[in-house]
């Protein structure tokens, strides 16, 4: 179901993918995405679930301007990032997109605060201290701010990664199984943070092989090998 507000306020989706196909391997023998289309609206929390290997991460990479699809068209705010130079795509990523990964992907030599701030670096911004403090407090990282990743628990790491994705206030967040390695309590914190983000002018696309996530999100799509299941 599409959020009512979206239907009223933003008929046009912020991110669209039309008839995307992607194959891997020699002669493109492994077909992963086959002619799929998807929209992400403003202030929407969209989740996609599906079995392992069905192409969820591949889809996120394509939407995240990191991998050119073989066929089909991606549009972010009405322009196709794959028609631009790779340096422009890097700029789009830093301005519009926040990434969250299942295995956090924190920079091992930076402490929590530096890890969060580093995503503002490509924008040439000096990150907003109030925002940083707010994120640290919301994500319960206050007391961990000077710790490096090796000193953090999985939950703390993922909360740091979420703060890093949010510090630049990107237009949308792509979260690849963000709760995959977390306990119940941390799962709840993460989902709540993403929920709040989508409620505050951002969009979130979260993928997971866990079908239970659908009850937390505005809209849910089920993916099976190559495409979405008809609902």
């Amino acid at each position, binding site marked *: 179901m599409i959020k009512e507000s979206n239907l009223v306020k933003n008929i046009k989706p912020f991110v669209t993918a039309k008839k995307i196909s992607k194959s891997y391997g020699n002669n493109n023998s492994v077909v992963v995405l086959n002619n799929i289309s998807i929209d992400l609206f403003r202030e929407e929390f969209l989740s996609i679930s599906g079995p392992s290997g069905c192409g969820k991460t591949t889809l996120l990479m394509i939407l995240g301007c990191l991998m050119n699809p073989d066929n089909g068209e991606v549009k972010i705010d009405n322009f196709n990032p794959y028609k631009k130079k790779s*340096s422009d795509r890097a700029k789009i*990523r830093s301005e519009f997109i926040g990434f969250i990964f299942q295995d956090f992907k924190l920079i091992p030599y930076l402490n929590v605060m530096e890890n969060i701030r580093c*995503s503002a670096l490509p924008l040439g911004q000096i990150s907003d201290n109030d925002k940083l403090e707010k994120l640290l407090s919301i994500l319960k990282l206050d007391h961990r701010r000077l710790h490096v990743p090796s000193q953090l628990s999985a939950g703390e790491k993922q909360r740091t990664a979420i703060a890093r994705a949010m510090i630049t206030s990107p237009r949308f967040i792509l979260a690849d199984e963000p709760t995959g390695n977390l306990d119940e309590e941390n799962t709840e914190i993460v989902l709540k943070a993403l929920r709040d983000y989508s409620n505050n002018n951002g969009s979130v696309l979260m993928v997971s092989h866990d079908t239970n996530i659908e009850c937390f999100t505005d809209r849910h799509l089920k993916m099976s090998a190559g495409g979405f299941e008809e609902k």
Partner: protein
Amino acid sequence: MNIRLLVFREIRFNLGGFTAGVLAIFLSLISYLIAGSINADLRINTSKKLQLMNSELNEEVTALEDGIRKSMKGLGFNIYIYPENQDLSAVYERGYGDKTMPENYVSKLANSKIIHINHLLPRLTEMVDWSEKDRSVLLIGVRGEVPIAYRGPNIKKPLINPVKEGSIVLGYELHHAYGLKVGDKVNFLDDEYTVSITHKRRGTVDDISLWMNLSLVQKILNKEDKINTILALECNCESLDRLGEIRNEIHKILPETKIIEKESRALARAEARNLTKFTGEKQIQNFLQSKKELIHIQSIFSFGFVIIICILCSFWISHLTISNINQRLIEIGTFTAIGFGGKKIMILILSRVLLMGLIGGMLAVLLFVITCPNVFGYDVYKNVTNNFSFIIIVLIAPLTLAVMSAWIPVLRAVLKDPVDVLRND
């Protein structure tokens, strides 16, 4: 938060690899500086030794020259003037010349302003058969001394008086063999002469010589107004190349003549001096040549060694960079996802490498500046550092070596697709 902080944090995190890279650069540069110092040391020592050898030789030659000057001082020397076409080997063989020149040559000299010559004695000499005694004699026609006009008549007492017409002077063999004494009459080639002087034994060709008046001899030999040599006695010239100077002077007046010096002690010493100078210079040349070869070989070997070290260090740095990048693939992928462009990622990795070069280079220079003056001496230190190429190499080489060694791995890292490492596994 900036790139610099990222670079420093990463270096602190992977300090081991970074230190190893610094060490590689340090080793490369310090080996270059040591090789340069060793070569400069050899060069400087060689030129010092060369200076010493030169000054020793100069001293030796100067001492010999002093000796020559002393032995020449106040002591005139004698020269012979021959016609230009006179074969000198004939002169040395026979003791006299067979070619003739006009007698007025001597008056030309006598009327010139010649300064180095004091006495001029023209002669006409020829081996003739003394038919009355059935033997060969060396017939010498002499005119006595020809006064040098501008000096006036009586400045010096004439060395040799002329033989009067009708008189004859006999060498030892000639009067001794026939028991002739001063005042005796003797027949020579159909004419009668009075013996005016009999010489003592000299052990030279003089002993079989017979002196007569020049004009008479010219008539006897059918060589009117001809002479074959001018003996110039008591020549004075203080310079070492006295013969050269006199030759110059005489040739200006009598260009068609040849001048040789009668053997003298001074001449022998001058020859010794020339020989000493020649062998000394030869020795110095040999020394220089062998040292030059040594310097050449040493610099080839030492710089070959440096190049090998640099190549090894370059491999080392490149290996370190590859392993650093492999360690950081996820980090690089993450930075890409966050929005770092290829350029920023390149700067991130290359800054680390440049810092390696900078610190390694600085440490090498520091060690060199502290130790070189003590180990090799200040001269060598100055020689190595007072050099434009030194500054260039010290400033640029460590950085270039570091960047060049890391370039390919860095490029590969930047061009690598970040998706592979970002996929959750």
